[in-house]
C-alpha cells in the first residue's frame, strides 16, 4: 500500500512539473531569460536511451503512422507559437512572439544565415565604401509589397527615418548605426536625415559617422511601406501607427489574413513575394501554451518546439511520423559576478569560482546531456566561435590554490577569510530547473573550497531589479538569441557600464575595451574572427562572468513538410517561402 501511494504521489508530482514547465522555448526569439530555466522531470539523470538523435534534422521513420487530420492537409502549414500579442510591426513589438508573426509578413534587405553571416534578401547586393562608413544598397528590380504597390528606396528611407523619431518607443536602437544627421533629426533640428540619400528607386545610400560591424544588418532591416505607414506621419508623432499594428503590410512571403487573439494568426501566401508566391497557400500560427504535444499527436498541428529532454525526444521518436530537429541555441547562460564587490576585484578569485564549480554536472543534470559547457560568450553555431581558450575543467585543487594565492586563507570554521572578511557570497536565481540543480551542487562545490554560498530563488523581475542596483554577489541569467558576436560581449565594455544585457556592475579591462572597439570597427569577417579570438582569450583570463552553457533547442515537424530547416538565429521564418507539403 505504501508503495502504491508513493507511486501515485510521484505521478502527481510529475504532472505538476509537466504543467509548470510548460514554457515553450526555442520557437521564438524569447524576450526574457526564462529560456534558461526549462523544467521537466526533476530527478531523471542523463539519458541513455536516445543516443541516436543527432544535431540537425532527424527524419521521420514511418510516415504511414501520420494522423488522418495531418495527412489530409495539403495546402496549410500549422505551427505552434506561444501567445502572440497583436503588435505586428517589426519595429514596435515588445513580445518576441510578435516578432515571429511579423517576420513572415515583412522582409528585410539583408538577412543572416545559419552561422550569423549576412546574406542578401530584398537587397540584391550592397557596397561599402573603402572607409566603411557609407553603405549603398541595391534593391532587386520590381519589388512589391503584398498589396501590389512598389517597394522602392523611398520606403527604406522612410523606415529608417521614423526609427529616428523622438516619439519612437520600440526596441530597435537605430543609433547604434550612427547615421549622419540622425541625432539632429531626433532633436528636431533638421527636417531630414542628412546621411540618408535615395539615389534612384532601386538604390539608397546611407552614410554613417562611425564604423560598426552591426550596422549592415541594422540598416538592412525590414521595410515598411511609406505609402501605407507614412500617410499621416509628422515628425514627433507616431501615435497613429498604433492603429496599423493589427493590419500589417509588408513584402514577406505571407500576408496576414486574420488574427484571432489568444487563438491563431492566419496567413495567405503573398503572390507578390520577390522569390515568387510560396507553394503552401495557407500558413497558421496556432497559439499554444507549452509543449502541446497533443496537437502533434492528433495531427492538428505540423510544427512545434519542445523543452529538450529525453522524455520528449522519446515520445517524438515513438510517433514515427515527425522529423525531429535538434540544434544548439545561439544564446548562452551565465552567472554574473558583481565586480564592485571587493573579493571579485582579484581575477584569481573569479577564476577560482569557475574552476571550483562542476558546470558539466550541473548541465548534465539539468538538460540530460542536451547542453554543452560554455567557455566563450558566443554559441558554437556562430562564425566567431572558438575553442581556443582555457576550458576551465572542474578542478577544486586549482581553485583552492588560486584562492590561497589571492590571500583568502581558511579560517577556524573552514570558511576562507581575508582582512577579517569571510568569503560568503549571495547568489540570486529564478525559480526553475537550472536553479534547482545548480544551488545544491554549487553549495557543495564551494563549501569544499571554503566558500559559503547562500542562494535565493526569486521572481525574474526581482532578480533583474536587485542586480541592477548591485545588490548581489552572483546572479544567473541567460542571453536572448544572439546574432552578432558583439551582442554577447558588449556588456563587458567599460563604456557600457551597467547597461547592455544586465551589466557587469563594474567590470573593467582596458584590453577588453580596446578589442571590443576593434571587433566592431571592421566589416571584414576574417579580421573580426581574429579579433574575437583575442578577445575571448582575454575574457577567459580575466572572466567577467562564470559562463555556464549552450542549450539545445528541440522542435519537431510532420514528415510531410519538406524544406523546413529551423535556424538558430531566425527560427522557421527563413524556411517559410520554400516549404512544400507532399
Amino acid at each position, binding site marked *: 500500500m505504501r508503495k502504491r501511494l508513493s507511486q501515485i504521489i510521484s505521478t*502527481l508530482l510529475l*504532472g*505538476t512539473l*509537466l*504543467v509548470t514547465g*510548460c514554457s515553450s522555448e526555442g520557437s521564438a526569439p524569447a*524576450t*526574457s*531569460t*526564462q529560456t534558461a530555466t526549462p523544467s521537466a522531470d526533476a530527478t531523471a539523470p542523463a539519458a541513455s536511451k536516445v543516443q541516436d538523435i543527432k544535431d540537425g534534422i532527424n527524419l521521420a521513420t514511418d510516415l504511414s503512422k501520420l494522423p488522418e487530420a495531418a495527412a489530409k492537409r495539403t495546402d*496549410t502549414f*500549422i505551427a505552434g507559437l506561444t*501567445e502572440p*500579442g*497583436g*503588435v505586428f510591426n517589426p519595429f514596435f513589438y*515588445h*513580445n518576441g512572439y510578435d516578432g515571429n508573426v511579423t517576420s513572415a509578413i515583412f522582409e528585410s534587405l539583408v538577412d543572416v544565415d545559419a552561422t550569423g553571416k549576412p546574406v542578401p534578401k530584398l537587397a540584391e547586393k550592397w557596397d561599402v565604401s573603402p572607409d566603411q562608413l557609407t553603405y549603398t544598397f541595391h534593391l532587386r528590380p520590381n519589388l512589391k509589397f503584398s498589396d501590389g504597390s512598389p517597394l522602392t528606396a523611398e520606403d527604406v528611407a522612410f523606415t529608417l527615418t521614423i526609427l529616428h523619431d523622438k*516619439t519612437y*518607443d520600440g*526596441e530597435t*536602437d537605430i543609433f547604434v548605426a550612427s547615421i549622419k544627421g540622425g541625432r539632429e533629426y531626433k532633436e528636431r533640428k533638421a527636417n531630414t536625415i542628412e546621411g540618408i540619400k535615395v539615389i534612384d528607386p532601386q538604390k539608397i545610400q546611407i552614410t554613417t559617422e562611425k564604423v560598426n560591424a552591426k550596422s549592415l544588418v541594422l540598416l538592412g532591416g525590414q521595410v515598411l511601406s511609406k505609402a501605407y505607414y507614412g500617410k499621416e506621419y509628422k515628425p514627433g508623432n507616431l501615435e497613429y501607427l*498604433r492603429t496599423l*499594428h493589427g493590419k500589417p503590410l509588408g513584402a514577406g512571403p505571407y500576408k496576414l489574413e486574420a488574427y*484571432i*487573439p*489568444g*487563438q*491563431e494568426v*492566419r496567413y495567405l501566401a503573398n503572390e507578390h513575394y520577390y522569390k515568387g508566391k510560396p507553394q503552401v497557400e*495557407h500558413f*497558421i500560427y*496556432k*497559439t*499554444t*501554451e*507549452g509543449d*502541446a504535444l*497533443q*496537437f502533434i*499527436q*492528433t495531427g*492538428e*498541428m505540423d510544427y512545434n518546439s519542445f523543452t529538450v529532454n529525453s522524455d520528449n525526444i522519446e515520445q517524438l521518436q515513438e510517433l514515427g511520423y515527425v522529423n525531429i530537429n535538434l540544434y544548439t541555441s545561439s544564446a548562452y547562460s551565465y552567472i554574473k559576478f558583481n565586480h564592485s564587490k571587493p573579493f571579485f576585484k582579484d581575477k584569481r578569485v573569479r577564476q577560482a569560482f569557475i574552476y571550483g564549480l562542476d558546470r558539466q554536472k550541473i548541465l548534465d543534470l539539468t538538460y540530460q546531456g542536451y547542453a554543452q559547457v560554455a567557455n566563450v560568450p558566443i554559441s558554437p553555431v556562430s562564425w566567431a566561435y572558438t575553442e581556443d581558450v582555457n576550458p576551465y575543467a572542474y578542478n577544486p585543487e586549482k581553485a583552492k590554490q588560486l584562492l590561497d594565492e589571492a590571500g583568502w586563507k581558511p579560517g577556524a570554521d573552514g570558511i576562507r577569510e581575508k582582512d577579517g572578511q569571510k568569503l560568503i557570497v549571495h547568489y540570486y536565481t529564478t525559480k526553475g530547473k537550472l536553479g534547482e540543480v545548480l544551488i545544491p551542487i554549487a553549495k557543495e562545490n564551494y563549501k569544499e573550497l571554503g566558500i559559503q554560498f547562500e542562494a535565493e530563488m526569486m521572481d*525574474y*523581475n*526581482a532578480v*533583474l*531589479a*536587485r542586480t*541592477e542596483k548591485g545588490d548581489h554577489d552572483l546572479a544567473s541569467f541567460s*542571453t*536572448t538569441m544572439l546574432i552578432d558576436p558583439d551582442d554577447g560581449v558588449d556588456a563587458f565594455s567599460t563604456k*557600457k*557600464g*551597467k*547597461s*547592455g*544585457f*544586465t551589466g557587469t556592475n563594474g567590470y573593467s579591462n582596458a584590453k577588453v575595451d580596446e578589442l571590443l572597439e576593434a571587433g566592431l570597427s571592421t566589416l571584414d569577417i576574417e579580421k573580426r574572427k581574429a579579433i574575437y579570438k583575442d578577445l575571448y582569450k582575454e575574457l577567459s583570463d580575466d572572466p567577467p562572468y562564470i559562463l555556464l552553457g549552450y542549450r539545445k533547442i528541440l522542435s519537431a515537424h510532420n514528415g510531410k513538410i519538406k524544406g523546413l530547416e529551423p535556424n538558430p538565429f531566425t527560427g522557421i521564418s527563413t524556411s517559410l517561402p520554400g516549404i512544400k507539403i507532399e
Partner: protein
Amino acid sequence: MTSYFLKRVFYMALTLFGASILIFFLYALTPGDFVDTSLKLTAERKLELKAMYGLDKPVVERYFIWMKNALQGDFGYSLQYQQPVMSLLNDYIWNSFLLAITSTFFTWLIAISIGVLSAARQHSWFDALVTIGVFAAMSLPVFFVGLLFIKLFAVDAKLFPAGGMMMIGSKETGLTYAWDVVQHMFLPVTVLTLLSVGTLTRYFRTNMLEVIQQDFVRTARAKGLKEKVVLHKHALRNALLPAITLLGFELPALFGGAIITEKIFNWPGVGQLYMQAFSVRDYPLLMGFTMFLAILTVIGNLSADLLYRVADPRVRLK
C-alpha cells in the same frame, strides 16, 4: 430602501477607492517595470522610454494620473499589446466568461440535485457514496485531471478536440461554429465542473439537513403533505437562501478566468493574458484588470445583499 441603497453605494465607492490605492501601490512598488524587463535596451534608451511612458514620475503623481483617467473610463494602453486595456480585455474576457458560466451552471445544477437527494436520504448508501465522491473530486488537482482527460478522450479515443476553442483554421460561422465551440468546451467544462461540484454539494447538503430539522418542515410533514412537496417547496427554498450570497461572490470569478484550466486546454481566456502581463510588468493592463475584478466583487456583493432583501422578508425588516 433608498437611504439603505445610497449608504451602500457610498460604502462601495469608499471600498473601491481603498482598493485602487492598494492595487496601484502594490504594483508600483513591485521591483522592476516594463522598461526594465527589456533586455536589449541601453541605459540611456531606458530612461527615454521611462519618460515616454511616464514611469519616471513620482509614484503618488502616477497614482493620481491613473485615477483621473480611470474615472473617465480610460485604463490606459497596455504597454506590451499597444492597445487600450479595455478593448484588449474585451478580446479575451468573454471566452473566460463562456467557460465559467457554463461550468457554473452545471456545477450548481448538479450540486443542488445531489445535495438535496443525499440530504433527504441521510445515512443511506447513496449519501455515503456522494460523500466519498465529493472528497475525491475535491482532492484532485485540476492539471492532473485535465492532462488525464486530454490523454484519454482527445489523444487516445479521439472523442473530443485536445484544446483550443475551435478547429485550427476553421472558417465556420453560425450554428456549425457554435457546435465546434461546444465540442471544444466539453473537456474543460467537465473538468471545471467535476472539481468545483464537491464543495458546493457539501454546502447544499448541510443546508438542507439543517432546514429539514426545523419546525416548519416538521409542521408541513405533520399536515400530511407529500414528502416531495415538503422537500422541494418548503425545505429547498429555504435552504437555497444563503446561496444567494454565494452567487454574488461568483461574479468576479466568472470573469477572472480559470488560469490553470485555460492553460491546460489552451483556452483563449483572460487568465493567460494576465499571467503574460505579469511576467513583463505590463502595469496598465494588470491594474486595469485587477480594478475591474474589484469593481465586480463590490457589485456582486451589493446585488447579493439586495437580492437577499427581496428573497428573505426577515432581512427587510431590519
